[in-house]
């Protein structure tokens, strides 16, 4: 191994080792520690925290987490595909302006963006009032406090993360191929599906990963716009940690979540090796 | 006088691939010397070793008698013009040119004077304050040349300097480059895969292939008297003929082509009867005529049928079937020839050439036939 390679690799690798790798491993250690009554981690070993995972409420929590994440990811990619297509076909001049216009709202603080939605979907807010006036919702229906609100706001916060990789892939796509497909008799939608989508599949995969994986650990959005029946694993981890002061139980849940996100991340690794 | 730049038994390997193989080459002071060859022939590796970006595994490189084999690039009195220009994008044109002199610690007045002189030489005085991105390709290349020349190198190394430019610009810059060479009198080592560039700019050319030099000589020697099938096929187009010597002579010998009878060949080396020989015969040396011509003893004529005609404007190319041979000939049109109709597809014609126009090859390899734009049929 060359000296110059170690010289440039060691600083970042050591940092990431200490602040990413070791902490992830510590999760699995703490999960087997006992809890102190005052809150905190005791000495010795205990299976209490891991056993707490057999809570009958957890399978439902897991299902909801996967469901909300999957629906959000599907919406994000479904909406981003035509947007990426549109951006890539625009003149460069318009493209860069539109791209900027899309990114700017996301330089507002994340918490504030979710807060803005909280107000927008408020029972006395403009959306609820309009829908009520059109009799699309009943007098007592709430827009906040349910899974739909969680999905809408999650789509809002994650959409740029889906648009950007898809746009990057679409920008490199040779649109002459679409003309060729049309020339060979494909209808526009068929050409889109059988030529464009395979052409940007790397972008779709990236979009899937950067939306789905972080979604699994979602916490702020369900906390602010969701209700009791739209809590996700992230909320339970925070609750175990901040309310119950039970670090080992929080660690056990985090460990389970880590194993859950590891799957999709390993897919990416294999795909990366192929490319 | 000793050579200015000398490669001595230089070998360079990359893993199992040998890029340059026991190569020896001398450059004389003041000449423009071209390394000509296809991509991957080792010419760029040789240039990079001269510049100091790469080091030979074996052999030495001498500059003016001094061994510079292991000298780092910043300590060599040679400079390079890169194919990609490699201009510093964050510096102005003036600062690009002044980069070397400033590093060498020239007094600021001299830096300024020399930079101005170079800007004038490459006709970019008006653009001195611009950044490279604001220049056209041709202008960038002139900056690259000025930036190298200002350091007064003993040898200027040019790595495919015109490859990124379009044809017309390439031709114009070639003329300018030649003029600059005449003015500064510095030795140029010019690497190119373009035979036209090499022919027009060089005092001497070395044709490289697979890490060795196939032939070194003046442009005319290389073209008119190729020593190997590679040189004959890589530079221009040619017909390869092979036959068996029937009568060996001092100056001219006779040789039998398969299915086609005997032809006269010019032999610059001693031949034995029964020896197998290979010949290169360039298309433009062959005259296509309708009538069986009256011949001198040193002339050849073979009978055939026109199979294909391609009109190029300045010339016309004919493919003529002669027995099992398919021979290419090229002719220019002259006023008087317009009176008679040109040979057409299917016409019976005679191909006529002088024995001096065919050239006996020292080395023949069958794979070189693939380099021809019109590979003959077996």
């Amino acid at each position: 191994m060359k000296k110059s390679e170690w010289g440039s690799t060691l600083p970042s690798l050591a940092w990431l080792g200490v602040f990413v790798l070791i902490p992830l491993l510590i999760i699995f250690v703490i999960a087997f520690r006992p809890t102190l009554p005052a809150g905190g981690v005791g000495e010795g070993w205990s299976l209490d925290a891991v056993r707490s995972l057999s809570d009958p409420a957890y399978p439902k929590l897991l299902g909801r987490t996967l469901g909300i994440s999957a629906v959000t990811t599907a919406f994000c990619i479904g909406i981003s595909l035509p947007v990426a297509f549109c951006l890539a076909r625009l003149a460069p001049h318009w493209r860069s302006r539109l791209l900027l216009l899309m990114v700017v709202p996301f330089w507002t603080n994340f918490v504030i963006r979710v807060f803005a939605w909280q107000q927008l979907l408020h029972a006395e807010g403009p959306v609820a009032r309009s829908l009520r006036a059109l009799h699309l919702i009943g007098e007592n229906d709430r827009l906040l406090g349910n899974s739909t609100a969680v999905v809408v706001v999650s789509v809002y916060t994650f959409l740029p993360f889906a648009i950007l990789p898809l746009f990057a892939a679409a920008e490199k796509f040779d649109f002459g191929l679409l003309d060729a497909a049309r020339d060979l008799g494909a209808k526009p939608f068929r050409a889109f599906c059988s030529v464009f989508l395979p052409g940007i599949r790397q972008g779709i995969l990236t979009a899937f990963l950067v939306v789905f994986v972080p979604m699994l650990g979602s916490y702020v959005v369900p906390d602010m716009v969701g209700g009791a029946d739209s809590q996700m694993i992230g909320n339970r981890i925070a609750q175990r940690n901040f309310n119950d002061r039970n670090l080992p139980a929080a660690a056990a849940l985090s460990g389970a979540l880590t194993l859950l996100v590891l799957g999709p991340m390993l897919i990416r690794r294999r795909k990366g090796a192929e490319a | 006088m000793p050579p200015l730049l000398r490669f001595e038994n230089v070998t360079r390997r990359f893993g199992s691939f040998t890029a340059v193989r026991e190569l020896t080459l001398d450059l004389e002071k003041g000449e423009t010397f071209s390394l000509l060859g296809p991509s991957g022939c080792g010419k760029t590796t040789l240039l990079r070793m001269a510049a100091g970006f790469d080091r030979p595994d074996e052999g030495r490189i001498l500059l003016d008698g001094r061994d510079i084999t292991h000298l780092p690039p910043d300590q060599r009195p040679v400079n390079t013009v890169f194919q990609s220009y490699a201009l510093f994008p964050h510096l102005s044109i003036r600062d690009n040119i002044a980069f070397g002199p400033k590093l060498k610690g020239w007094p600021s007045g001299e830096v300024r004077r020399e930079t101005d002189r170079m800007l004038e030489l490459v006709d970019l005085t008006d653009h001195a304050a611009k950044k490279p991105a604001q220049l056209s390709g041709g202008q960038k290349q002139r900056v690259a040349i000025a930036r190298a020349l200002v350091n007064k190198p003993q040898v200027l190394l040019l790595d495919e300097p015109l490859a990124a430019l379009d044809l017309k610009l390439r031709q114009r810059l070639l003329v300018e480059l030649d003029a600059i060479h005449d003015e500064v009198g510095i030795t140029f080592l010019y690497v190119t895969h373009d035979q036209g560039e090499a022919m027009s700019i060089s005092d001497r050319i070395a044709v490289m292939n697979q890490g060795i030099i196939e032939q070194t000589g003046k442009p005319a020697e290389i073209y008119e008297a190729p020593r190997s099938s590679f040189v004959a096929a890589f530079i221009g187009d040619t017909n390869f003929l092979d036959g068996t010597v029937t009568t060996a002579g001092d100056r001219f010998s006779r040789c039998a082509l398969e299915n086609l009878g005997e032809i006269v060949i010019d032999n610059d080396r001693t031949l034995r009867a029964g020896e197998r020989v290979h010949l290169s015969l360039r298309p433009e040396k062959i005259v296509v005529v309708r009538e069986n011509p009256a011949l001198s003893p040193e002339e050849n004529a073979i009978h055939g049928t026109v199979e294909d005609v391609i009109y190029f404007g300045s010339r016309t190319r004919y493919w003529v079937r002669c027995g099992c041979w398919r021979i290419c000939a090229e002719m220019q049109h002259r006023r008087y020839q317009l009176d008679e109709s040109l040979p057409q597809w299917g016409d019976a014609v005679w191909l006529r050439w002088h024995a001096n126009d065919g050239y006996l090859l020292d080395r023949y390899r069958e794979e070189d036939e693939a380099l021809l734009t019109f590979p003959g049929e077996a």
Partner: protein
Amino acid sequence: MKPSRLPLVTTILVLVFFYLPIAALVIRSFNASRYTPAWKGFTWKWYERLWEREDLLSALGNSLKIATAASLLSMVLGTTAAFALHRHRSRLQDFHSLMVRVPLVLPDILMGMSLLLLFVSAGVPLSLITITLAHVTFCLSYVALVVLARLEDFDFNVVEAARDLGATPLQAFAKITLPMLLPGILAGGLLAFTLSIDDYVITFFVKGPGSDTLPTLIYSMIKKSRELPVINALSTLMLAITFAVVFAAQRLTRKA
């Protein structure tokens, strides 16, 4: 044949979707109504109230300190990482690359939780320092990827050209490589800065008592439903600053 209008229509709807909540927020910041979004007349009073809240100012100070430190440190670490990833191909770099990419997809809550457990296990008291360490960790990856992208477009011939013209390796790095990469490194640093300012989840896990950043303070104000209109005013102000910075940056880059 007319090209399908669906992509363009979707794009426009997405833009409306993006700006709708923000527009509502800006309008509400001028609404005299304290508790409901119903319009009760125009007012500046929420902005006036903003000046009275010193906790907001100190939280903003914390955020800026952390973001500055985190972006500077991650610029150094991210740039060396990008050089290593670009220059070398080896098993080590495969692993290095994986480690650099993990923070990009790891859910925030796992990163926050695992770092909290690290600090608790190591007995490190939670403070502004622990927040900064956490921020450097995810900023590093973003800087590394931005600089790596620049390196991929970097024509290393210019470094050879500098050497050819008499520069030592160190001079070539200082006079050519670094100035040419600087825009990329600064862009990475700017991204790191905004990510650090923006972060709520990780900060919430590793912050000590009393060391609030702007997002954690705003969050707790929202949770307690206190002075919501003041948050609107604050958000509008931040939005205005963001737009001003983006606009200025656009003008500057166009001139350069």
